[in-house]
């Protein structure tokens, strides 16, 4: 078991013929991900990486019965590609691009509202269920199947947390990069909700960072859960000074400035185990689980 993606997830790739898509889809196929086709407008009918290429998401879904998409289209085209994915009623879209304009994201959020499609990203390494499916750009060789769920608001910190779980042989159930941007699809709460229900996930690692109130919102949600799986949390940004700014509007929205420490306090208050150094996560995992059990081998 795992959340959101697994060996039965049928994946299409939007923008499959591009360089980065080619490099990463090939790796995902080698990893065993069930990629069943791709979309590049104008190249419908061709084959790429041994997979059929379609002109539209709708055509691809009709032909392959795919239920998820990993999107490698450049930022200016993300809005249009998302519209297609939502209209084709995909369950899940993983958007890798960074630099999507903010107003485009506002429109994308409006599209997603009330649809059945869940978005991970943008600006994310994606989602991986080790040994089953890789949707994105994760360095798959550092992952191994196991029982820790990882949710992160920073691409590269995600890898750091994966390595921490490996240090104590616990492995990962599913790893989700929520995306580094300020407007993102899925947030901590939705991911925690799913990990809570997943029988194979025994504990969760949550990696936050300065900016927004995602961590505080998640802490409030977690605090009120009747049954809680343990969460180990980290927030980056303690040492970041508040730099030059323009105007006051940002402060009004965030009611003054929220520091990394404020976030950590809210998380600790909710019962989350907070570490101050990301490389200390394995120590907390060791305390939670018997150090000698082995559920994962690289």
């Amino acid at each position, binding site marked *: 078991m795992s959340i959101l993606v697994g060996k039965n997830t049928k994946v299409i790739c939007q923008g499959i013929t591009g360089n980065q898509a080619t490099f990463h889809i090939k790796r995902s196929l080698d990893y065993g991900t069930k990629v069943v086709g791709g979309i590049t407008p104008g190249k419908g009918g061709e084959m790429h990486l041994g997979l059929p290429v379609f002109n539209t998401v709708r055509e691809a879904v009709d032909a392959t019965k795919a239920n998820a998409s990993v999107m490698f289209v450049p930022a200016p085209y993300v809005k249009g590609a998302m519209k297609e994915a939502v209209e084709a009623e995909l369950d899940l879209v993983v958007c890798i691009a960074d630099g999507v304009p903010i107003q485009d994201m506002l429109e994308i959020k409006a599209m997603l509202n009330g649809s059945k499609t869940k978005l991970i990203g943008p600006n994310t390494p994606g989602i991986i269920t080790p040994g089953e499916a890789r949707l994105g750009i994760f360095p798959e060789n550092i992952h191994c199947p196991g029982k820790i769920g990882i949710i992160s608001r920073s*691409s590269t910190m995600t890898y750091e947390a994966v390595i921490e779980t490996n240090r104590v042989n616990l492995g990962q159930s599913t790893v989700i990069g929520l995306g580094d941007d300020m407007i993102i699809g899925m947030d901590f709460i939705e991911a925690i909700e799913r990990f809570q229900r997943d029988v194979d996930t025994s504990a969760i690692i949550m990696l936050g960072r300065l900016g927004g109130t995602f961590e505080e919102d998640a802490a409030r949600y977690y605090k009120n859960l009747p049954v809680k799986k343990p969460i180990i949390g980290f927030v980056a940004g303690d040492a970041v000074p508040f730099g030059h700014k323009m105007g006051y509007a940002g402060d009004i929205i965030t009611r003054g400035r929220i520091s990394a420490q404020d976030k950590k306090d809210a998380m600790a208050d909710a019962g989350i185990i907070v570490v101050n150094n990301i490389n200390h996560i394995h120590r907390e995992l060791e305390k939670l689980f018997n150090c000698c059990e082995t559920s994962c081998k690289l």
Partner: protein
Amino acid sequence: MNIHEYQAKKILHKYGITIPKGGIAYTPNEAKRVASAVSFRGPWVLKAQIQSGARKSGYFLEAKAGRKGGVRMIKSRRDIIKNAEQMLGSTLVTMQTGPKGKQVGRIYVEAFNKVKKVFYAGLVIDRMLPALTLLVAETVDKDISDIAINEPEKILKIKLSLHENVAPKQIQQILEFLKLSPRSAKSLETFVNGLHQAFIENDATMIEINPVGVLSNGSLIALDAKISFDDNALYRHKDIKMLQDDYEENERELQAAKYRFSYSEFEGNIGCIVNGDGLAMAVMDILHAKGFGVACSLNVKGGVDKDKIASGIKIIMTNPKVEGILINILGGFLRCNLIADGIIAAASEVGLNVPLVVRFEGTNKDEAKEILKHSKLPIIIADEMEEAADALIKAVEESD
């Protein structure tokens, strides 16, 4: 990207928002000429054009600039020349610029407008909702910065639609909240819809008018203006991109931006190269906890071009404040071997004069480590982030 007040006002004027008559001046004589052109007689307002708020309560570093701040009310023509001479070329420090301040290269000369009342108006994206949000507040005797922190209930927040005009009901709500007379209703509608349209059409991320003035006939006038734009959307706004004032930006930041990397400078002595904002913060946190500060941090994001990466690394290597370099790369999209190649290319061009610790993880890390080992450069390779930080600190302390 930010622009100057006078540029922001010009944009807003196109959307039907009333602004004072004014003109830009680069020299004292120009200032005097502009003053005569905008108003037959005083008072005038001289406004330093640096990209910062709180210019009025700011101060100049140079004694020759006098004691007054960056926004000055002037009654006589003679004083225009005198004050323009003081301000131009001097360095203005405000609570938003940091202690170094910013040099004033041009001033905006405006006709003074007598107003009955002022208020604050801001249009931003509340990213947590997420939605376009209008903020207004009366600012009779208090600064908006005070109100924001101490009396947030005195700020009205209204969610606006992305595509539709502001609803008449919302206009009425703003009118009542600000205790404006019904005579201002029409002007308020034009004003709010102007802000909204300017925001949407130009991919702004913030428009702030602090303050808006109410003239004796009830109509509104933008006495100040700030606009910030979404860097990621500039590709569809060539006209806005042209307004960028390179003088306002740090030279190294500009260089990094050219390669689509992000670069920031701080007060410490360690240079960091990472791929990811979160990782940049985590590295800073670790160094900070060990008593060391970061001088500059370069985020090469998902860079895939070896030459660009080398150019980015050079920005860090040539920063004179850097006494040691920590490179922490977790390859996914980015392949570690490209960073290794980039390090060697940069070092062979500008030399490697400070300790350098590298930590690679992820895509192609073994290949990358091999490349560095064969280079014969004095590079320390670490396996974990904390180990890398410790190794660098030791090397920097030894080289002192």
